């Protein structure tokens, strides 16, 4: 059941994220700072789904950038090639990721550990190669997207672009957070945690392991698709390399950095990994080194992620006192 603590945190999160742009905007160059939160927002959307898959269900995917790519090219197809409204683009993105996610989850989720990692990695690469070799979508040169218009509202209008996208992605994140909290605080969440530890035992307790794994995999691919569509519209351009293997690994790092058994951890994980390149400024070619170092340090010293710090500190104080 959703606890009072969750409801409180969710409301707190809503208020913070709602007023953040207003506060940022009062600074000079506030638009730039709000702009940082848009990519953070759409990566959060993918990472939230991935956290359910990795942290709760104990599966792994190194191919989620591929599903973002599918989402992005769905929007390209609808908006650029067919000239329909962006909403249909989102619908196609959801539908395609649902179908593809469902079809590949059947064979792929029978695999475990390293084998699952390799298989999902392969799927990510296949999607990237198809998008590069498919000349209809501009091949390796990429392809541009018209502005994101929902009804008569143009999200890409330069006057309010950051604001508009900011509220779009964070409203979606709020909804996904609410759904995730519903889910993990019910018997379904406990079922995921159980099959994470031992699938045979989970089965013997009446948990339909295949159904749960498929469901959560498809849910995460759909979120990745929506995220990819928004990202493509925001950048107005999509390249086959926009979401590549590097992105997939970064997404997994975000989830692990935040803490795998905590939904809120994902928010911190995404924030930190997205802010590092901004802080590095002109040294951003070293981003790879910093990301690698962060991952190693976390795995060595904080295997349960950033959200385990309070617990660790408590235990440390306890030890000193006792």
């Amino acid at each position, binding site marked *: *059941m*959703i606890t009072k603590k969750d409801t409180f945190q969710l409301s707190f999160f809503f208020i913070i994220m709602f007023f953040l742009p207003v506060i940022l905007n009062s600074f000079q160059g506030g638009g730039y700072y709000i702009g940082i939160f848009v990519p953070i927002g759409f990566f959060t959307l993918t990472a939230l789904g991935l956290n359910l898959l990795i942290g709760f269900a104990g599966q792994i995917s190194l191919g989620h950038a591929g599903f973002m790519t599918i989402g992005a090219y769905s929007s390209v197809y609808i908006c650029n090639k067919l000239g329909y409204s962006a909403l249909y683009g989102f619908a196609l993105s959801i539908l395609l990721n649902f179908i593809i996610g469902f079809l590949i989850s059947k064979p792929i989720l029978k695999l475990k550990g390293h084998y699952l990692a390799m298989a999902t990695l392969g799927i990510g690469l296949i999607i990237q190669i198809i998008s590069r070799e498919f000349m209809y979508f501009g091949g390796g040169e990429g392809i541009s997207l018209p502005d994101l218009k929902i009804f008569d509202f143009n999200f890409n209008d330069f006057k309010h672009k950051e604001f508009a996208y900011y509220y779009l992605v964070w409203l979606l994140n709020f909804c996904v957070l609410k*759904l995730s909290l*519903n*889910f993990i*605080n*019910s*018997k*379904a*969440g*406990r*079922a995921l*945690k*159980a099959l*994470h*530890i*031992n699938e*045979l*035992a*989970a*089965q*013997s*307790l*009446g*948990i*339909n*392991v295949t*159904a*749960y794994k498929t*469901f959560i995999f498809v*849910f995460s691919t759909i979120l990745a698709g929506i995220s990819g569509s928004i990202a493509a519209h925001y950048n107005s351009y999509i390249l086959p390399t926009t979401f590549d293997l590097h992105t997939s690994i970064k997404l997994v790092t975000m989830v692990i950095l935040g803490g795998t*058994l905590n939904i809120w951890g994902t928010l911190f994980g995404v924030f930190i990994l997205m802010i590092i390149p901004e802080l590095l400024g002109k040294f951003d070619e070293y981003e790879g080194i910093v990301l690698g170092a962060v991952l190693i340090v976390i795995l060595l010293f904080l295997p349960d992620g950033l959200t385990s710090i309070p617990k660790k500190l408590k235990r440390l104080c306890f030890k000193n006192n006792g």
Partner: protein
Amino acid sequence: MADNILIAKNISKSFGGIHALKNFSFSVKKNSITALIGPNGAGKTTVFNIISRIYQQDSGEIFFQNKDITNFAPHQLPQLGISRTFQNIVLFPNMNLVENIMVGGHIYGSSSIFKYLFAVFSSKREDELLFKRAMNNLEFVGLQKLAYSEISELTFGQLRLAEIARCLMSDSELLLLDEPAAGLNPKETEDLARLLLEIKKIGKTIFIVEHDMNLVMTISEKIIVLNFGEFLAKGTPSEISTNPQVIASYLGDDQYIG
């Protein structure tokens, strides 16, 4: 026979060239404690894994309450009325004790995963109910004080009890207990015996694989002996302990008779 809750007919199973079970038939009477014994490697756990559908037998049939369960998937068994524990305790360290027990009640509530995402109904009330039942079961095995403990904080004996409490959550007719006394000290084993008799008293049927002869002889009404995958003998504890075949193959050593 109508009062047999579980009937297996001519079960065979081989792994590669090894015949784990050969034409093994047995039955378990309703509301009884039946034990399956045999030397190490006799195929006892294989029998359990076949009943709980983790393995598919090569030939033979299994009937539970006169229903052929051969085509059921493992996760459908609690719904049917069969739940089990594992030889190497399997609890979930990513949840606290009471949540672990609640997982055992998974078959209750909605079966649609979607509903839990959108919470279109009150999963809160459902959870409160499950929680109450979990607490009752914890009380039944005597662990209610540890409800919010982490799994890593429990002793081995408590883990065994917790697994039995979780097994009771699905309210199954038939409980398959795989070596519940393994690793327990004499005092804990005594408590376990009392608990198992208590479970029988509330109308459940217990089918148990166990090495602790003392426990088996005290609590079970019927003992089935398995030797190298083949049926060797069946009967009451006193019949088994005097059966020359059984003594020769298994109980030969005095220390086993106790």
